[in-house]
């Protein structure tokens, strides 16, 4: 029942290629995800650096300087720091001497560069270590040849090779010779106990640029002669453009032109080559091209457009009814079934059933969607923040009827992702605009555009039913009613699958015209709260300690031979026990109320305890203790940032995230009507990571899902009330408690 053996294969022999640089030094190209063809070599001139068969490179210069070109998109999850750290570890160089640069995606040449699913580190861990170790071995072999000794007699530390006699050579001294050597096979990787860089705190590699305001993000990218584009999209889902009048807009300051786009995107709709990241809109759109962003934004407001209704204009009540009908209906797909739940319910002493509801959620990346495009007959140049550059390039090629080889795509640092930038709608818009005007152009969304034309986390409902008999949990059934798709296939095998004899997961969904998609920790971001607050009720019904119930259930899974089970019960028990210990569970001071969760998702095991206090008659989340087992931690400083941010993000959206529709129109369009958690509401998060030597998993997502459950359970402890609906703070009066009289 190993959690997840990644289906990524790379041939140890083939995935690396080296060459001597024209300027001296060694270039090592490698591919994190696929084996290279055996006949390709990295270029000898750095100017020709591309991704033909390699998606990452290390350069070691004659002076010993090491540059690592990091291939994966950086959305704030820290891979631009962590991935190069792994190489540097095995290469045995001093981290503070390593220069890290963002690799570009050259579609002539790309393979796979994706940020999503907390997978970057997990999938590349072996390849990155192999690469560093192989390079080091080549340098050592070159030194051994020079000294005429056996390589095994040499030792290395921080880029300096020492022989038995105490003589030393720097990497720079042997790099030219090393570049001419055969690539060694079966290099030895370090033992975790010997790590000097992995497991140390390292500051974000872009820190100096961030704190001094240097151009880094998509919105910051600029070239001479660039113009700005603002896109007017249908105000409601279910509407399309009928006609428009831009007479006034065209006379406004700075306006260059007003055009219409969307025909090309429409033509692509439903084509097979287009994959799930495409999210093409069925409507045509009006675009203002102007000299500055402000001119474009302002003129957009002056366009008089007519919209026609083409499909149902959904409202929250409509969606609510649809989801309830699904839950009450009989049309389910069963994703996992153990034993016979119906029998268990029929024979139970006590049956518990609860329904949990969540709203839609926008991603609200701090940097609004934007992209740069410049289309000429020879080239298509695309620059900006995108989590799926490869798909974006492919779709643009389809869209414009061009060869994907014409496309050069560069990734910028990204002002948040959260899943939104998996979808390339804004890239295609930029490309279609650039194709029409043939000038370098930046498409910029306003916050209102960004929030109202999103790819939302869909509203979901869960109905969970438990059978209790003879003081035991004998049956467990989870029903999901969702929009535009259901939970992915691994989730039914998360906890408590395997722990309850009669267990079943049923799902159903309906198709909506509202664009929906992945949102940080898809499905589990809400499911964790539903299940984990349900467990609390089971414990109450069984008159059991809440921690003990979970530990007991996990105990039953130990030694299971069920290959489908995703989580490891020992690891989940361990994080829970540590969270109990660190949070002082059961020993909270007077006036502090706690809620606990143990959860597995995104390959990591997490336990959280939330502390709630009553202030001015209202419950307030003061602290969350979070324990994560994500295997070896590459960069604890960065990892803690992810954990703390994930927890607060989870608390914030569970408490305040409210988003719905009225006749197809989103209910909020900016931060005055959409509440994100702020500094004064953020709990203190105490983050701990289990120390072990297991392969690293992901961190961008797993800390978020348990937070809502921990808060809901703590709110219950503090107020005696159970909440079945997010956001928790929609109705403040529900929570208001009588002020205790303060005596003395």
């Amino acid at each position, binding site marked *: 029942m190993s959690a997840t053996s990644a289906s990524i294969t790379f041939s140890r022999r083939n995935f690396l290629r080296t060459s001597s640089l024209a300027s001296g030094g060694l270039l090592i190209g490698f591919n994190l995800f696929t084996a290279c063809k055996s006949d390709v070599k990295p270029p000898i001139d750095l100017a020709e650096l591309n991704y033909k068969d390699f998606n990452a490179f290390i350069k070691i210069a004659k002076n010993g300087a090491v540059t690592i070109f990091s291939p994966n998109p950086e959305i704030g999850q820290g891979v631009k720091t962590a991935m190069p750290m792994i190489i540097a570890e095995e290469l045995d160089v001093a981290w503070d001497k390593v220069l890290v640069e963002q690799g570009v995606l050259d579609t002539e040449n790309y393979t796979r560069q994706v940020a999503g699913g907390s997978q970057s580190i997990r999938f590349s861990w072996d390849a990155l270590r192999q690469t560093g170790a192989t390079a080091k071995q080549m340098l050592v072999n070159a030194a051994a040849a020079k000294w005429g000794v056996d390589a095994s007699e040499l030792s290395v530390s921080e880029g300096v090779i020492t022989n038995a006699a105490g003589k030393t050579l720097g990497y720079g001294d042997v790099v030219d010779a090393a570049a001419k050597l055969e690539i060694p096979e079966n290099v030895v990787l370090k033992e975790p106990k010997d790590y000097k860089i992995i497991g140390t705190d390292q500051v974000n590699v872009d820190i100096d640029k961030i*704190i001094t*305001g240097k151009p880094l993000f998509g919105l910051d990218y600029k070239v001479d002669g660039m113009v700005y584009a603002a896109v007017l999209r249908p105000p409601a889902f279910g509407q399309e453009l009928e006609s428009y009048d831009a007479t006034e807009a065209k006379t406004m300051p700075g306006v260059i032109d007003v055009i219409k786009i969307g025909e090309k995107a429409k033509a692509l709709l439903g084509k097979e080559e287009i994959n799930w990241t495409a999210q093409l809109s069925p409507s045509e759109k009006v675009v203002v091209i102007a000299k*500055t962003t*402000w001119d474009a934004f302002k003129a957009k407001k002056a366009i008089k457009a007519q919209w026609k209704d083409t499909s149902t204009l959904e409202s929250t009540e409509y969606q609510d009814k649809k989801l309830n009908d699904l839950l009450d209906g009989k049309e389910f797909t069963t994703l996992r079934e153990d034993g016979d739940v119906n029998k268990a319910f029929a024979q139970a002493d006590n049956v518990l059933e609860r329904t949990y509801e969540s709203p839609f959620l926008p991603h609200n*990346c701090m940097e609004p969607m934007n992209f740069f495009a410049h289309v000429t007959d020879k080239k298509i140049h695309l620059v900006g923040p995108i989590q799926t550059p490869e798909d974006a390039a492919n779709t643009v090629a389809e869209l414009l009827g061009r060869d994907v080889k014409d496309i050069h795509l560069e990734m910028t640092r990204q002002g948040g992702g959260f899943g939104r930038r998996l979808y390339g709608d804004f890239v295609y818009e930029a490309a279609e605009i650039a194709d029409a005007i043939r000038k370098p152009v930046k498409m910029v969304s306003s916050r209102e555009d960004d929030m109202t034309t999103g790819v939302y986390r869909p509203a979901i409902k869960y109905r969970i039913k438990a059978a209790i008999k003879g003081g035991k949990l004998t049956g467990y059934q989870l029903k999901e009613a969702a929009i535009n798709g259901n939970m992915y296939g691994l989730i039914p095998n998360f906890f408590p699958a395997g722990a309850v004899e009669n267990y079943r997961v049923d799902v159903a969904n309906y198709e909506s015209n509202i664009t929906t998609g992945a949102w940080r920790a898809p499905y589990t971001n809400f499911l964790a709260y539903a299940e984990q607050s349900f467990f609390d009720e089971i414990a109450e019904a069984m008159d059991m300690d809440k921690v003990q119930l979970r530990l007991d259930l996990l105990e039953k899974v130990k030694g299971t031979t069920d290959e489908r089970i995703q989580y490891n019960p020992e690891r989940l028990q361990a994080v829970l026990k540590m969270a109990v210990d660190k949070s002082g569970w059961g020993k909270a001071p007077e006036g502090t109320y706690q809620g606990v969760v143990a959860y597995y998702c995104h390959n990591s095991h997490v336990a959280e305890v939330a502390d709630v206090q009553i202030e001015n008659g209202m419950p307030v989340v003061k602290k969350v203790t979070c324990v994560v087992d994500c295997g070896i931690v590459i960069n604890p400083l960065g990892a803690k940032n992810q954990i703390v941010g994930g927890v607060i993000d989870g608390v914030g959206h569970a408490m305040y995230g409210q988003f719905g529709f009225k006749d197809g129109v989103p209910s909020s369009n900016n*931060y005055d009507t959409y509440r994100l958690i702020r500094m004064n509401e953020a709990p203190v998060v105490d983050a701990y990571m289990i120390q072990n030597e297991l392969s690293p998993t992901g961190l961008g997502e797993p800390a978020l899902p348990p937070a809502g459950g921990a808060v809901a359970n703590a709110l219950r402890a503090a107020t005696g009330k159970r909440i079945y609906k997010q956001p928790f703070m929609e109705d403040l009066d529900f929570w208001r408690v009588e002020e205790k009289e303060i005596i003395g």
Partner: protein
Amino acid sequence: MPKYNLNVNGKPRSIEASADTPLLWILRDHLDMVGTKFGCGIAQCGACTVHIDGNAARSCSLPVASAEGKEITTIEGLSEDGSHPVQMAWKEVDVPQCGYCQAGQIMTASAFLAQNKNPSEAEIKNVMHGNICRCAAYNRIQKAVEIAAGNME
């Protein structure tokens, strides 16, 4: 279009723009100073925070016409080399995740600390709560402001 003479980071700059253009877009699109960020455009998130005569202000909601004759400081001008105590503290604590909101956070914190060198925890929360961090780096922001407070001259 009318002309405006601005004083940005101690240097005179003159630009032509319509009077209602927010200072944010003057900085970003006219003057190529992109350190000041666009987040909401309606004075709700603080990403666009600059100093006007030493006070924190939302540049997205400040028409260029009213910025004339004032001393404007942006993240690019907070220090020559990132050595302002607030910037140093941000680095020490490794505050950023995506980093997008951080220029605004730093500008809010630095204007505040210039006037209050010994703030309480509650005062820090209160002044920083106008700046949204979607990545929720709030714990580290709190810590960095506390450290910076001790290093202000």
